[in-house]
């Protein structure tokens, strides 16, 4: 049995090779899936990080300019994230793949969006009022630090 390969040996070798190839392909799929998961996690991390930074910035540079108009809640969502989850409204370009077997459905007309009415950013005003609290507190304790030469 030494030195020459029998048919059974070759079959076994081929079988092991196929098995290894299958496992290698499985491995590559795992890599692809891991990369995909990694991209998703990184994306979520970026969004959460950005949100946290925004929250921390609140009130640090408050002035009258900060009282900028923000659209109403629905309009704000539309402006900030055009790729947000689709609503029940079907956009004209949304049906890219036509159904082949079913009867053609009538395309619903796009729902007209109401013009957003800007509302003031009251949080910016509240931050300014909070600064008054700080000024009054600092004023209240100042005199006690004066001391006396007596």
């Amino acid at each position, binding site marked *: 049995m030494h030195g020459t390969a029998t048919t059974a040996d070759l079959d076994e070798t081929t079988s092991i090779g196929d098995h290894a190839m299958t496992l290698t392909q499985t*491995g590559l799929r795992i890599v692809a899936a891991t990369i995909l998961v990694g991209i998703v996690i990184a994306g979520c991390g970026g969004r959460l*990080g950005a949100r946290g930074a925004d929250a921390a910035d609140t009130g*640090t540079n408050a002035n009258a300019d900060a009282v900028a108009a923000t659209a109403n809640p629905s309009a704000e969502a539309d402006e900030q994230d055009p790729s947000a989850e689709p609503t029940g409204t079907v956009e004209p370009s949304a049906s890219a793949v036509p159904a082949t077997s079913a009867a053609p459905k009538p395309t619903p007309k796009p729902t007209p969006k109401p013009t957003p009415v800007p*509302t003031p950013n009251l949080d910016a005003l509240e931050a300014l009022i909070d600064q*008054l609290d700080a000024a*009054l507190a600092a004023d209240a304790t100042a005199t006690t630090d004066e*001391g006396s030469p007596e």
Partner: protein
Amino acid sequence: MNRSPLRFRTGIRLTALATALVLAGTIGVGSALAARPAAAPDTAATTDARHGVGRCAPLWLTARADPTVENWQAVGLCEIDRRLETLSVLQAKVDASAVLTDAHEAALDGIIASTQEGLRALRAEIEADATLAELREDITSIFEDYRVYALVVRQVWLVVGDDTVVVTADGFDAAADRLEAAIDAAEAAGTDIGDAREHLAAMIRHVDAARDEVAGDAEAVLALTPADWNDDSAQPILREARQSLADARGHLRSALQEARQVLAEIEE
């Protein structure tokens, strides 16, 4: 000869390596994004405890127990140094303020700069003093000729407060226009606006009252000198300015509540 197991192991190694790299990269990117520094808090909001009256208290005790020139010099230098540090904090606050008018900022800059200059000159005199009589006079001057805490600190905070009221009131003026437009739009859309217009009118009244409370206060406070404090003429002006500022704050808080009521009415 049999290379399939080798390829299998190589594949597994490559898989493990790639997985590790991707995970490490993901964690690194996520951590970097999540670890972005938050905005620094407003640390200058109150006077640092290191600048407080207690900082030099041990030196006062020592000098009274052992009244040597060196001990009283230490007292004088400590009292001047804590004032100079406080003035630096105040200067930074004035420089960073987004609410001060140009005229008020210039006036505060002038008060702080002249006080710093005088205290530095006095510090040199104290270092050169050779007798207890000279030291007693110069240490008294630290208090009576400058009134850093009793007057200058209060001038900065009261004027910053007054200008904050004006800026906030201006912000409410802009808010009133937008709230009125929002009420009109809601009414045109058939929404029951309830008492929205009444709340808006109340908001405007509170804003006007806040503005009236502090009108002219900053100029009166900025005109005060250490001599006014020493003859007791500054105290009533400072007291009234503080009360006006507190009342203005109350009006602005009420205005904020009214504005929120407006939004609540038209969003119901």
